[in-house]
């Protein structure tokens, strides 16, 4: 869940060189992701990526309060990783982050590089690594799949927030104690991540029941064979 400053960074939190640096990092990663995870408009990756993006985008309109004056919404890094795999998952999340910035002013335009790095890259990758490591559990039973989805949601949220700590250390505009900052940011996101984990698990559970073939994580190696699916 994204509820705090660490997720949709605004303009002015980082200095200009740092903003550009992370813009470059994001661009390089996305180029790599685009090469590895092809968006083939003829198979199901394109509609699934588009729909997940739309869903995350729409969920943002259904903000719910987390703290007074602060509301949160589903972030979706782990969900994207589990449904689409790490590469297309990154691409999908980056579209969400960019369009949110352009249409909602959610996250600064100059902070786009940093925000894409945190949410589309770090969060998605961390969620996928967790899910991949526990893939055996996920395939064995429904409870296994749900627990793995929960954990991936939690870890991806924390990972994305950790990205912010690093960025702030490099180009933050105020001289705050980094240890304290890291403690607060990561601590808060461990709590927020529980919400993210629960929603991720519920969503994956609902999808697994009806369309297990949509879940990248449990698809067998012949990913294009829709009938051969573990459920």
């Amino acid at each position, binding site marked *: 869940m994204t509820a705090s400053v660490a997720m949709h960074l605004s303009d002015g939190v980082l200095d200009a060189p740092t903003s550009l640096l992370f813009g470059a990092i994001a661009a390089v990663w996305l180029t790599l992701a685009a090469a590895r995870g092809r968006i083939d408009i*003829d198979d199901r990756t394109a509609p699934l990526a588009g729909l997940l993006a739309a869903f995350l985008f729409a969920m943002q309109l259904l903000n719910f309060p987390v703290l007074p004056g602060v509301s949160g919404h589903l972030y979706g890094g782990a969900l994207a990783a589990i449904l689409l795999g790490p590469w297309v998952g990154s691409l999908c999340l980056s579209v969400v982050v960019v369009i949110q910035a352009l249409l909602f002013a959610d996250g600064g335009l100059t902070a786009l590089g940093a925000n894409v790095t945190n949410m589309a890259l770090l969060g998605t990758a961390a969620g996928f690594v967790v899910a991949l490591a526990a893939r055996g559990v996920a395939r064995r039973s429904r409870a296994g799949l749900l627990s793995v989805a929960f954990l991936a949601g939690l870890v991806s949220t924390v990972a994305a927030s950790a990205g912010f700590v690093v960025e702030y250390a490099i180009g933050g505009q105020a001289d705050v104690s980094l240890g304290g900052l890291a403690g607060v940011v990561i601590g808060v996101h461990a709590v927020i991540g529980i919400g993210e984990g629960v929603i991720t698990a519920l969503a994956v559970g609902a999808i697994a029941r009806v369309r*297990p073939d949509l879940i990248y994580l449990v698809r067998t190696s012949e990913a294009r064979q*829709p009938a051969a699916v573990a459920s």
Partner: protein
Amino acid sequence: MSASLDVRGLEYHYPDGTTALAGIDLRVEPGERVAVLGPNGAGKTTLVLHLNGVLTGTGRIEVAGMPLSPGTLREIRRRVGVVFQDPDDQLFMPTVADDVAFGPANFGVTEPELAERVQAALDAVGMAGHADRSPMHLSEGQRRRVALATVLASDPELLVLDEPSANLEPVARRELADVLLSLDRTLLMVTHDLPYALQLCPRAVLIDNGVVVADGPTRDLLADADLLAAHRIELPWGFVPHP
């Protein structure tokens, strides 16, 4: 000359395991008009979705002598125009005119021809007066007519219609028949409307459980009461086939 459409041993299973096509064989010659009949759930729509490669089962599909494969997909989609059973699946642009222009524009038609095509297609279905409205804000029958126009505008060689007359007012239904008869195109029409099939299509195929169970002149097929009854087909109340 090669067949307009040639389907061999086509099989398809939906992701949930349902077998929808269990080996379809169908050959349609250029200029033929063929009705596709069959009970609910027979696999008619699933077959239609294969003809331009939006679903891909196993088996072999050739359009105008060209085997359907990733390389020929675009060309085949240009030649095959499909009107879906549910217009909500078909319409997705902000205005009716944009939606009708979408297909031809993608296939490289440019202004001023594009505007002419859009106008002609909307005239053919009687929806020219609604060009600037949102397809979302039309009645069901109006949406179906726009869906037809989107495909007419692309002027495909093989026209595939899935239940084109459903939800059409009687006059629009007859006008559509006139339009289809005036087009000199190969036509494949899925329908439960047997009089309409008989009026428009000299030939019919009957599909059930994912296979073709009968294929022949529409009049003969509709005269075979045993065959029809075995596949939940019957002539409607009050209908008297003309001699």
